[in-house]
C-alpha cells in the first residue's frame, strides 16, 4: 500500500505516489535552480513540465511511480547537461567540475548530521563509519579539549554539501545525469524512511547533538543580545589596546634603531648585541627591521581594524587583502626566525679564562674594598655601559661583578674570571683573553676598576668579568658604599642583602661571613 497525491502537471491531472512526487519535485526545482539567472526561468520550467506531462500521457501512465519519474528524468536529462548544449556561454564555465576529473572533497553533511555534519563528512571522505570520528572527538574533548577546538575549526572551514553535485564530490563520484539521478533517488528514499541505519550509538549521539545544539542556541542568542551592548565597548577596547601597543612598539623601534642614543641603558645590552650580529649578518639591517615590523605590525593592524569594525560597522576585509596580510606576516615571521637563529649562533659558544692573584701585600686583618672612580662610570648606575675611548684604541665595558668567598689558605686571593661568547669556542676564548682588568692594591686597601677594557676592534661578545675575593679565616673586609651595586649575591650568615652589606665590616668565620658592626 502506498499513499498517492494528485498533481496538476502542465494542466493535466495525475495521480502520483509520494516518493515519486518528492523525486519529481526535487528534479523540477533543480532545473529551476539551474536557470535561476536566466530570464526565461519560469517559462523553461513550465515547458519542461508540459513535456513531462506529455510523456506520461503518451505512455498512458495512470499512477506515476518513482520508476516513471526516473525514466522521465533520463529522457529530459539533468539541467547540468543542458548547460553544455544549450544555455548561455557563461553557464558552461560556471561549473568546471563538470568537465574535470572528480576529486574527493571533504564536505559537511547537511542532513545526516548530529551537530555540524563534520563527522559524517569525514566518514564519507575516508569511507568509514562516522561513529568512529564522533567517538574520537568526544574522547578527545576530555583530553585537554583539543578535539573541541579541532571540531569548531573544521565546522568553520569545511563547506556544507548543499547541492547534489557537492554530495557526489564528497564521495568522489563523477557528476553525470545518471549519478545525480541516483543520488537524488537515494536521498528521497532516505527522506521517506529515515529510521534506517539507526542504532543505539547513533541515538545517543543524536541526543547529545540536540543537547549541545540547545546550549549553543542559547549562547548564540545571549551573545547577540549582549553583543548589541558590548560591541561598541569591545571595539573601543580593541582600539585602545591596538593603539597603545602601536605606540609602545614604535617607541621600542626608535630606541633600538638608536634614535635616542646608545646611552639608553635599559636597552644597551640588546643594542650592542644587535650591532654585533649585524656586523656579520648577510642581509641588510632594513630587511630584518621590515620583517619585525610586519610580524608585530600586522596583528596590531588587524586588532585596530576589528576595533573599528565593531564600532562603525565597516565592510569586511576582502579575501585577497586577508591573504596578502597573512603571507606578509609569514614572511616577517620567517625573516625574524632566521635572524633569531643566526643571532643565537653568533653567541652559541661560551669560553672563560681564569686568572688568580695572591694578594700577599695585604698585611692588615681588615681589607678595605672600594671602586676606583672614573669620569665616565658612576657606582650608583651599574647598567651595561660600553664606551669607546678612541685615543687609546680600547673599549670600556662595565660588566664587572664581585663575589666573596672563603680562602683555602691564609692569604687573600682575587680570582678574575673572564667570559666571552662567540660562534666558536676558539673565537670566544680569544675574546675572553683579550679582556684586560685593572685594580690597585695598596696597604690594606683594594681599589677595583668599574670596567674592563678590550681592544676597540673586538665587537660586543657578551664579555663579562666575575671577580671573586677569597678571604682567609678570621680575616675581615670592609665593603665601601661604592660597592652597593657592584657586589653580587655574597653569601653571609645573616643572609643580608647585597645593598645592606655595604658600609659594614664582614669577617670570615667558621660558619661563614659574619657582620661585625651591624646592629
Amino acid at each position, binding site marked *: 500500500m502506498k499513499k498517492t497525491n494528485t498533481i496538476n502537471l502542465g494542466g493535466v491531472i495525475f495521480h502520483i505516489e509520494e516518493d515519486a512526487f518528492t523525486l519529481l519535485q526535487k528534479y523540477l526545482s533543480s532545473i529551476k535552480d539551474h536557470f535561476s539567472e536566466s530570464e526565461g526561468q519560469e517559462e523553461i520550467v513550465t*515547458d519542461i513540465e508540459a513535456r513531462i506531462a506529455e510523456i506520461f500521457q503518451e505512455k498512458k501512465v495512470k499512477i506515476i511511480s518513482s520508476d516513471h519519474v526516473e525514466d522521465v528524468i*533520463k529522457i*529530459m536529462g539533468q539541467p547540468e*547537461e543542458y548547460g*553544455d*548544449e544549450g544555455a548561455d556561454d557563461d553557464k558552461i564555465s560556471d561549473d568546471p567540475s563538470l568537465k*574535470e576529473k572528480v576529486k574527493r572533497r571533504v564536505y559537511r553533511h547537511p542532513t545526516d548530521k548530529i551537530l555540524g555534519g563534520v563527522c559524517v563528512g569525514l566518514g564519507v571522505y575516508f569511507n568509514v563509519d562516522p561513529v568512529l570520528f564522533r567517538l574520537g572527538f568526544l574522547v578527545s574533548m576530555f583530553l585537554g579539549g583539543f578535539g573541541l577546538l579541532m571540531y569548531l575549526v573544521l565546522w568553520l572551514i569545511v563547506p556544507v554539501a548543499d547541492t547534489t553535485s557537492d554530495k557526489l564530490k564528497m564521495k568522489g563520484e563523477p557528476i553525470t545525469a545518471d549519478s545525480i539521478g541516483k543520488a537524488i533517488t537515494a536521498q528521497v528514499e532516505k527522506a521517506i524512511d529515515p529510521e534506517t541505519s539507526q542504532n543505539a550509538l547513533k541515538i545517543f549521539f543524536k541526543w547529545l547533538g540536540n543537547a549541545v545544539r540547545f546550549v549553543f542556541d542559547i549562547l548564540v542568542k545571549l551573545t547577540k543580545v549582549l553583543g548589541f551592548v558590548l560591541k561598541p565597548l569591545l571595539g573601543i577596547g580593541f582600539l585602545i589596546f591596538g593603539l597603545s601597543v602601536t605606540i609602545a612598539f614604535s617607541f621600542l623601534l626608535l630606541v633600538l634603531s638608536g634614535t635616542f642614543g646608545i646611552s639608553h641603558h635599559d636597552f644597551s645590552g640588546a643594542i650592542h648585541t644587535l650591532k654585533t650580529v649585524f656586523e656579520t649578518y648577510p642581509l641588510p639591517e632594513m630587511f630584518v627591521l621590515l620583517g619585525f615590523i610586519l610580524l608585530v605590525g600586522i596583528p596590531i593592524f588587524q586588532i585596530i581594524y576589528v576595533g573599528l569594525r565593531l564600532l562603525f560597522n565597516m565592510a569586511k576585509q576582502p579575501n585577497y587583502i586577508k591573504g596578502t596580510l597573512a603571507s606578509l606576516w609569514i614572511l616577517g615571521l620567517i625573516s625574524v626566525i632566521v635572524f633569531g637563529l643566526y643571532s643565537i649562533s653568533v653567541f652559541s659558544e661560551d669560553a672563560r679564562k681564569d686568572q688568580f692573584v695572591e694578594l700577599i701585600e695585604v698585611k692588615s686583618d681588615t681589607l678595605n674594598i672600594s671602586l676606583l672612580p672614573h669620569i665616565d662610570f658612576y657606582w650608583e648606575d651599574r647598567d651595561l655601559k660600553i664606551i669607546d675611548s678612541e685615543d687609546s684604541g680600547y673599549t670600556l665595558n662595565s660588566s664587572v661583578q664581585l663575589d666573596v668567598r672563603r680562602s683555602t689558605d691564609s692569604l687573600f686571593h682575587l680570582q678574575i674570571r673572564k667570559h666571552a661568547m662567540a660562534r666558536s669556542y676558539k673565537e670566544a676564548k680569544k675574546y675572553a683573553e683579550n679582556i684586560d682588568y685593572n685594580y690597585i692594591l695598596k696597604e690594606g686597601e683594594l681599589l677595583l676598576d668599574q670596567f674592563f677594557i678590550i681592544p676597540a676592534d673586538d665587537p660586543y661578545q657578551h664579555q663579562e668579568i666575575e671577580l671573586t675575593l677569597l678571604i682567609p679565616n678570621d680575616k675581615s673586609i670592609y665593603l665601601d658604599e661604592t660597592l652597593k651595586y657592584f657586589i653580587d649575591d655574597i653569601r653571609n650568615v645573616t643572609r643580608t642583602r647585597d645593598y645592606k652589606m655595604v658600609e659594614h665590616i664582614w669577617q670570615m668565620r667558621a660558619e661563614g661571613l659574619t657582620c661585625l658592626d651591624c646592629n
Partner: protein
Amino acid sequence: MYCIVPVNIFIIAIPNSSIMLKIENTKAQMRKGVLEFCILSILENGEAYPSDILVRLKKANLIVVEGTLYPLLTRLKNSGLLTYRWEESKSGPPRKYYTITSDGITFLSALYVTWKDLVKAVRLTTKKI
C-alpha cells in the same frame, strides 16, 4: 534544407578518459552552435511544437536529453527570432506552436552563409594530403 551533423566528421579512436572528456566538450560546443541553426531551419519549413522538433533533432543525433531544447527555444523567442501561439490538444496539455519571425529568417540566411563557408573550410583543412 538539411542539417549536416558535424560530429560525424570526427571519428577518432580515443585512448584515455581525459581526452574523452575533451572530445565530449568539443562535441558539445560544436553541437551547441549548430543546434540553433538547425532549430531555425526546421521552423523555416513551417510551424512546429517542441515534440515535433525533438523528434527531428533526435533522429539527427543532435541532442541527447530533451531538456536541452527548452532553454534554447526560450532564448530564441526572447531574442525575437521565434514566436509561438497556444493550441489546445485533445490528448494532453495545451501546446506551444513555434513559428520563425522575419528577423529569424534574416538571421537564418546569415547563418546559412556562414555554415557553407565553414563546411568548405573544414573540408579544405581536414583533407589528407
